[in-house]
């Protein structure tokens, strides 16, 4: 179904789900800011901005769902790594369920509309 005239603003959508996306990336393995950004982009979220990822990491860390540690690096600056702690994992589980019911509801809505249009 093509959107004419007023396409969905991807950055607005991202704003709502970036937190979940960052948690998901870190659930895979611990990572530092720039690496998180790269992996988000590789998974298809190429509209995501560097500052958004960095700000989200700091917010999640402040909220107490991330652990953080510094890894010295020989060929560059020290890297601050982030990873999920226990609270982070349960937050991810919760958010995954919320996301699942949200998307299925929206899928239902959109599919219902497209079949209605087809008739």
């Amino acid at each position, binding site marked *: 179904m093509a959107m004419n005239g007023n396409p969905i603003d991807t950055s607005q959508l991202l704003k709502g789900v970036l937190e979940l996306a960052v948690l998901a990336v870190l659930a895979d393995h611990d990572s530092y*800011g720039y690496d998180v950004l790269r992996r988000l982009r590789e998974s298809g979220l190429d509209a995501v901005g560097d500052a958004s990822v960095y700000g989200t990491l700091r917010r999640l860390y402040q909220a107490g769902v991330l652990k953080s540690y510094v890894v010295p690096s020989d060929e560059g600056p020290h890297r*601050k790594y982030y990873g999920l702690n226990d609270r982070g994992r349960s937050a991810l589980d919760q958010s995954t369920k919320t996301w699942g019911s949200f998307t299925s509801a929206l899928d239902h809505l959109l599919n219902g509309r497209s079949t209605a249009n087809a008739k």
Partner: protein
Amino acid sequence: MPNSSQANDVARYAAEVRAALSSLPDAERESLLEDLESHLAEVASESDQSLEDRLGKPAAYAAELRSAYGVASEARNAPPKKRYRDRAWGLVSAVLATQAYSEVRAFLPELRAGWWVLRAYLLVLVLAFMFRDGLNLRPVPNPFTSSGLLQILATVLAIVVSARLGRRGMPVSRGWRGAAVAANVGIALVALPVLVSMGTGSDYYGYYAAGSSDPNLTQAANYSSFTNIYPYSRDGQPLRDVLLYDQDGKPIVAADSGLVTNVPIGADGLPIQNAYPLTQSDPNGAPVVAPRVALPPWPSSQPSPSPAISPTPTPTR
């Protein structure tokens, strides 16, 4: 290894981001920007492009950072004063969101025409107040006096002009728009005390007689406003053609009542305005009847006026 120009680029970019976020509380800003430099250095080391080319302007980067970091955390550290203001604003928005407000709001434009008429009336009222020393204004001017007629005509004219101005809509230019708003508010504010004073007059009908600007006449308005005087003799007989003067010897002239007054003309051809009671008739020609009065009971045994109060010694002869 990052080269020195990259390090400079990182330092400069980070400094500008920090500056753009200077309005955040210190603790908040530090926890957000703790490892900004090392993060930016990471980004810079990936490419030879400048940070600004890759990440955009530092101010935009700061804004995105702030938005991603979340407004909630900013509010948590905000001083309580601001939170009270937020709460007050929340209350206001709650009121604005109610059904009742939106209904009133939808209804308001229909009241505009009413205001156009009202402001014209108020403007003329205020002008009348100013030019007549503000005494004894009536809600509806007396059309049988020249000043009352003038006031009515002026009101009609003002309504026409006001409605034309209103229908034309608000001026486009900002300055004129401000002036228009100020003028409307001004009329409303100035008219308020005039309206209040109108209600407190002791005599609703009494007000300045038109054309009685002769300084040799004492205006009724300078006393309490009366429109006629009915003198009675001591034994209760109504008196006719009683000439009244005040303490300065000026004739006392009644206020204009809107009634038709037949003023006797003296032998010199001048009207005698202070001969009471005035012979008056209403605009339809019906004569005004003297009011019923309750005469005070004089002490019957005393032939002389008020001996009890005036201790004039009786000459013993």
